[in-house]
């Protein structure tokens, strides 16, 4: 016997996956900020900025419509390393990691871009929370409506 309550809570499950994905994105941004001053060393590269991709999950368990499977949320795809920007060399001969000519390679993390991404992630999180609150409010209002 299938779970009688499943159909009602699809909205909750979708929002759950969205919130998990946003938290993961916040964690990646935090990791970038944490390592942004990593200048590497003589034998390894500085920290390369990480970014990640979201993927749409399809509901393979539920009913399939003629056009395909209905969306059932979002999930994290791969975590990529940002290879579009190079490490910037900075002249600092006193640094322990300076090479022969006195240049130190800095990580390609841009502080202001990460702060901006952080703001976007926070707003997305709030939007998803608001969607969940709306969904829950609709369900509760439906139940209360039939209270005689």
């Amino acid at each position, binding site marked *: *016997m299938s779970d*009688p309550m499943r*159909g009602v809570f699809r909205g*909750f499950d979708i929002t*759950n996956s969205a*919130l998990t994905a946003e*938290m993961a994105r916040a964690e990646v941004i935090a990791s970038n900020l944490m390592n942004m001053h990593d200048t590497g060393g003589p034998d390894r590269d500085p920290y390369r900025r990480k970014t990640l991709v979201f993927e749409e999950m399809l509901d393979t368990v539920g009913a399939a419509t003629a056009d395909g499977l209905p969306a059932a949320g979002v999930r994290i795809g791969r975590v990529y390393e940002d290879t579009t920007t190079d490490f910037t060399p900075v002249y600092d001969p006193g640094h322990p990691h300076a090479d022969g000519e006195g240049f130190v390679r800095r990580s390609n993390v841009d502080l202001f871009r990460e702060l901006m991404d952080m703001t976007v992630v926070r707003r997305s999180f709030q939007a998803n929370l608001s969607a969940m609150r709306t969904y829950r409010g609709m369900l509760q209002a439906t139940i*209360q409506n*039939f209270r*005689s």
Partner: protein
Amino acid sequence: MSGFDIIGPGGYGPPQLRPLEPRDLGAQEIGGAQGPLGELSIEGGDEASGGSFADKLEDALSSVSDLRNDVKSKAEALARGEPVELHELMISMGKSDVAFNMMLEVRNKLLNAWDTITRSSV
């Protein structure tokens, strides 16, 4: 009209929308309602879907109880320090809340029906 009404790839204009069909909105077929309480269908006593009304009610109650146990286990795991996402716990609490309220309303309706039937003079 202005040139902004060009529709097509790379053009401006209103987006091409496929007309919505009832199945997109989750409309149920009449005569087999799949509401939250599952197969409490209009036909009633449908042998093909298995079980009587009492069985289905029992299933609904057990799923409400399952949701509550889910909340309990997630809260305990979070308190123990296991990697449980906080929003997962809150969403489980929301689900349990909604399911419980729904069950309460169904119970009230059944009791009212029972009262009405027993009070009606034969």
